[in-house]
């Protein structure tokens, strides 16, 4: 292999991406710190969406134009795989926080173990999980927690099924069966959207009727951070699936060259696996 290396040409998109990302950060920061800066945030977020559309469109066109060699393809694959690993570690931080408070912090506040001295802070406090009564009653815990065997179970089934349907679509793509690919991809996308709707219903229910809010002590904090970031990732995954669907309808991808499809599929499976962890450790146990 002594053929010429392929190096992609320069592009204006990265620097525009920096500007809009920076605008988002400045807007969000000043909104939270000083209550101003909404225009920066809006411009930033809209900009991020536009830049991603533009940047990816260029990449798709280059790919369709046959510019990329197998080495470039491997670079994209490895990049995506390591990106998902970084997402795994992001969720690991929140799962770590959940396990730490459940196993150590809350029992210690009740006087258990070597750090039992912290029980002196709130002598009345009794540890439990889910934590319904916070150490300091002024914080206030939830009245009730979400029943895992209703909406969360339905959502689990939906998401697991969607992973299966996406795999069927993938196999159809590899077998060059375009109608089957289209149908199963649409089914997957719909399942993703149903998941998000159910999650929304559950949130409204929890917030309004169970007293389960972000402010409801550590249970509410971990509940909403874990399910919230997961929901955000499902949303991103659904957008990715929608883009893939549009490309499939346009006739993109071939049986042996469809990196973007695989990357989207990896991401969707990752989101699915995270949900199983959530279902087990946030809802059930």
């Amino acid at each position, binding site marked *: 292999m*002594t053929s010429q290396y392929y190096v992609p*040409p320069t592009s204006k998109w990265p620097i525009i991406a920096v500007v809009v990302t920076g605008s988002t950060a400045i807007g969000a*920061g000043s909104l939270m710190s000083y209550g101003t800066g909404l225009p920066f945030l809006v411009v930033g977020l809209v900009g991020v969406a536009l830049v991603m559309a533009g940047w990816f469109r260029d990449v798709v066109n280059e790919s369709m134009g046959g510019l990329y060699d197998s080495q470039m393809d491997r670079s994209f694959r490895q990049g995506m795989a390591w990106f998902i690993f970084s*997402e795994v570690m992001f*969720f690991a931080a929140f799962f770590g926080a959940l396990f730490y408070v459940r196993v150590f912090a809350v029992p210690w506040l009740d006087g258990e173990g070597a750090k039992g001295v912290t029980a002196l802070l709130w002598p009345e406090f009794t540890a439990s999980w889910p934590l319904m009564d916070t150490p300091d009653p002024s914080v206030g815990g939830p009245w009730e927690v979400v029943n895992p065997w209703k909406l969360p179970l339905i959502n689990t089934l939906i998401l697991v099924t969607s992973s299966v349907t996406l795999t069927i679509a993938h196999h159809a793509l590899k077998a060059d069966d375009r109608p089957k690919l289209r149908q199963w991809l649409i089914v997957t996308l719909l399942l993703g959207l149903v998941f998000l709707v159910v999650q929304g219903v559950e949130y409204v229910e929890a917030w309004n009727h169970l007293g389960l809010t972000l*402010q409801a002590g*550590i249970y509410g904090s971990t509940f909403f951070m874990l399910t919230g970031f997961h929901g955000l990732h499902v949303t991103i995954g659904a957008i990715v699936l929608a883009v893939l669907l549009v490309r499939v309808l346009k006739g993109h991808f071939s049986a042996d060259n469809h990196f973007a499809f695989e990357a989207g599929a990896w991401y969707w499976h990752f989101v699915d696996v995270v949900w199983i962890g959530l279902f087990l450790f946030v809802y059930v146990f």
Partner: protein
Amino acid sequence: MASDTSQATVQVSTSAVAQGDGAHDSHGPTGILRWVVTTNHKEIGSLYLLFSLAMLFVGGSMALVIRTELFQPGLQFIQPEFFNQMTTMHGLIMVFGAIMPAFVGLANWMIPMQIGAPDMALPRLNNFSFWLLPVAFGILLSTLFMEGGGPNFGWTFYAPLSTTYAPPSTSFFIMSIHLAGISSILGAINIIATIFNLRTPGMRLMDMSLFVWTWLITAFLLIAVMPVLAGVVTMMLMDINFGTSFFNAAGGGDPVLFQHLFWFFGHPEVYIMILPAFGIVSLIVPTFARKRLFGYASMVYATAAIALLSFLVWAHHMFTVGIPLVGELFFMYSTMLIAVPTGVKIFNWIATLFRGSISFEVPMLFALGFIVMFTIGGLSGVMLAIVPADFQYHDTYFVVAHFHYVLVPGALFAIMAAAYYWMPKWTGYYASETLGKWHFWLSVIGVNLTFFPMHFSGLAGMPRRIPDYALQFADFNMLSSIGGFLFGFSQLIFVWVLIKAIRGSGEKAHAHAWEGADGLEWTVPSPAPLHTFDTPPPFDPLTESPSRH
């Protein structure tokens, strides 16, 4: 083959493609815009290096503000509130703005050249990664001018100082950490993809230079722990703005949770700042000892061992916070275990020097200075790992002495060594030996004068992060301040050296600038042309691998 590429270019008519066909010598924009849109690994490497040099002086100036106030007991120049902002910003800027980007800049410049690649694997992502940094640090520095001042809770930003009692600008600070984190993660992904995917045919993993190896492992650490930092600052953000209870015991959370999460990031972060330094020293010592590196394979395994252990030691920063006894013992022993692979490395460097034909050019001086003074910092680290001793040392100037020894004559000296080593390749001219030697010796004197007395003031009980102190610490502090100014101003010599080399005054360099040097980067002309390898260069492991027998 070139015609194939341009034909394909014609088929696709996107604006990006229209700007030039990349693989060769045509370039779209010129002037300042060229640097803004560049996707070339050498140009981006230079941007990273220049940015980190600028940050070194910004963070260094803050250190001198601190040393000015501490020159004498009592409050003479600044208020305690501002002092706290200076210690915090100094730490954040040096860690995230100076040391880390300098190593990323070196990686950008050298990894593609050392493995025979045409560029980084994902060149456009590379541009995005770099330009996020000036934005992140612009935001960080701007907090100093905001209502309520900038971050004042120390570079480790422990809750609840950084949540309940934080200045209003803290959400801004969190945003800047997020941006710097995104930059690091994407940069690390790019480095891993480059190393795994763009090596010239025939170069196995065990044929890579140790700089490439150490960066591969560093990049893995970055991808593993920067997201945890992102997670912890997000929890802070929620606690501050949305009423969550992560670090609030009243709601069932725990401020100590912050410390666990922070140091799960923070300890690997320490190795992120030192493993590439190990790689640099492992190239420079063999070059100027005119021998092959002793124990190549053991160097690789030791680096991997250090990286894996780094995930299991984080609570050694928290011995006095009140963790259970089992935890104290576990983290004490796991920490001390790290001394073993680190000792392997130091042994290997010394064994490489043994019976070598050593010459003392400036890069070698910095590398040898690294070996001696990093070891001092390593040994005080072992002292700090001992739980009962740490109860005495914790939060004293002994800790400050320890981590400055591993970061300044450690990481920073290695960066300087690398700069002198590769400057002929970058600019086509050797760095001035005379000025370089002045730079080295003044730095050695300055750094030891600054930080060695801190061992004593720390052992005598002087706490860190205070603007005023008891009279018995006055002499040590005066010495530290004099040393600090000496060290700070001697870095200006480096700027002078760099400008001279860039302007092309001095001795012209050959392609193979150092006679004892190994590696593909010395097969291309000095200065290296903008595009080095259009086709994979030949590589024969039998005669070119650093692991050959």
